[in-house]
């Protein structure tokens, strides 16, 4: 087993107790914990070089600009972008997807055009398209999941015609752990000239991601789900796509000239970064990317496969426990959703919390998927590099206690 437990010392939060127990954090799909390396980078920025970027020519401002643009270069190379200019900082995956939907979609889509999604999409990759549909009259079409929780591609050929302009898919489901079939969709989409957008909010943090290899048109993710600060995320786009796209926010820094009635835009990526950006947060994300790169994303993925495999095995020992997601731990992500007998997900979460085990319960911002699975809510344990098999054991203990509290044999 890939042992990364020595890394836990980098995460101050593990000194905490929850309800009298050492913290077992199994909610990394919602947000990850932060290593001191990231916390201190943000701290040091504010203490020693805080200034606005791209403005004025004083020393502090130049240092802040170098650090900010340096972070852009780091994050761009982390996903193997050809150039830092392909990477636009944003508040997070949600904002990035909205920017694409409005900035590209609103200007290139019209009535009768189709956007293909999957039923496993997070609301962040559903609602923006619904909003664009209101303005343009485009149609949304959904691929479904098969009974192995894999995206069902059997109807794809029939679906794809010249009406399809965009295929937008999650790289990894935050509910079932299903991997989106990005490569297959890119090839299929190309054949009808459609763009592919990858919601990589759960992909980039958990496995190597190479935008040149994936060859999609846009790819988005959030910093806070990959050890970085809150308030920062990114949108990567192919240069041609970024050129075609209109800015969705107007303001300072995104312009080359502003008149009273007309303005001209700055070159990409600045065209998309109106106003003061999340400077300290971008620099913090740079530190997160350094941290992950030092471990190696293959190692992160392997560790996650192993811990997910162990979890699936241990969960299978619990009577009446049903996992919603693919069963092969090496072909899925580390978000494990489940139900347990007739115990509601919120009751499970409350009981586990009393054991110091933090899991999430609810619809996980994926109501269409919940309807597809025909459950109102699931409990979800999600893993990251700092989790150990001990954490899984603590989860299992807590679930057995839930059974007993609900008067079910264990």
């Amino acid at each position: 087993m890939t042992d990364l437990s020595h890394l836990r010392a980098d995460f101050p939060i593990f000194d905490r107790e929850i309800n009298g127990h050492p913290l077992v954090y199994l909610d990394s799909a919602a947000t990850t914990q932060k290593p001191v390396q990231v916390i201190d980078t943000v701290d040091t920025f504010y203490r020693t070089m805080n200034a606005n970027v791209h403005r004025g020519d004083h020393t502090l401002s130049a240092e802040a600009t170098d650090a900010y643009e340096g972070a852009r270069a780091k994050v761009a190379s982390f996903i193997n972008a050809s150039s830092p200019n392909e990477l636009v900082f944003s508040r997070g995956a949600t904002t990035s997807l909205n920017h694409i939907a409005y900035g590209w979609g609103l200007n290139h889509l019209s009535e009768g055009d189709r956007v293909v999604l999957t039923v496993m999409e997070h609301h962040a990759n559903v609602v923006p398209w619904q909003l664009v549909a209101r303005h343009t009259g485009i149609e949304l079409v959904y691929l479904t999941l098969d009974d192995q929780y894999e995206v069902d591609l059997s109807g794809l050929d029939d679906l794809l015609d010249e009406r399809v302009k965009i295929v937008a898919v999650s790289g990894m489901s935050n509910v079932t752990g299903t991997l989106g079939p990005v490569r297959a969709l890119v090839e299929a989409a190309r054949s009808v000239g459609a763009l592919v957008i990858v919601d990589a909010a759960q992909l980039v943090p958990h496995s190597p991601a190479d935008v040149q290899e994936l060859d999609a048109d846009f790819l988005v993710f959030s910093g806070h789900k990959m050890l970085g600060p809150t308030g920062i995320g990114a949108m990567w786009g192919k240069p041609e796509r970024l050129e075609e796209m209109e800015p969705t926010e107007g303001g300072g820094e995104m312009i080359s000239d502003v008149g009273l009635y007309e303005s001209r835009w700055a070159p990409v990526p600045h065209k998309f970064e109106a106003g003061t950006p999340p400077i300290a947060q971008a620099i913090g994300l740079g530190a997160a990317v350094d941290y992950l790169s030092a471990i190696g994303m293959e190692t992160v993925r392997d560790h996650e496969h192993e811990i997910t495999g162990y979890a699936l095995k241990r969960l299978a020992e619990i009577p009446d426990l049903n996992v919603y997601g693919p069963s092969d731990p090496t072909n899925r992500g580390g978000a494990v959703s489940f139900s347990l007998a007739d115990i509601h997900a919120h009751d499970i979460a409350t009981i586990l919390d009393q054991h110091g085990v933090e899991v999430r319960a609810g619809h996980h911002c994926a109501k269409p998927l919940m309807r597809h699975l025909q459950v109102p809510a699931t409990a979800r344990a999600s893993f990251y590099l700092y989790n150990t098999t001990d954490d899984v054991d603590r989860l299992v203990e807590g679930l057995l206690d839930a059974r007993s509290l609900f008067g079910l044999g264990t």
Partner: protein
Amino acid sequence: MSSLDELYRQVILDHYRNPRRRGSLSGPHIHAEGMNPSCGDEFSLDLRIDEGVITDAAIQGQGCSISQASGSMMTDVIVGKTIDEAREVTATFKLMMGIDEGEDPLDPERPGAVLGDLEALQGVKKFPVRIKCADLPWTTLTEALDRIDA
């Protein structure tokens, strides 16, 4: 008793698994729906009122043991009560749960203080984020009663 044992008392699990008056009413009735946006719990309530008295109730919904049991117990208490009495019970319940502040709600001298099974929900107080679950049926009830008065 651990706080979890206090939370998941037998009577609560019983109401959760065997909710009273589950379904909907036919004929004239008042209908109200409530939802807890943060956790997705849903609760809907039908009330029949005859001459100011709640003569029947039916509930539907889905959610955790606390919200569903609270709803089931609620119907047990309010059926047969006048509208004013039902409001009084609601106030008493909210006092007991610490949702509203005021004098001791379980003082036996207090009118409307008879909460019956509902007293089992006191264990929820130790779980602040779950109080809204227990409260969902009662906010729905208040909405229904307000509709009659309006």
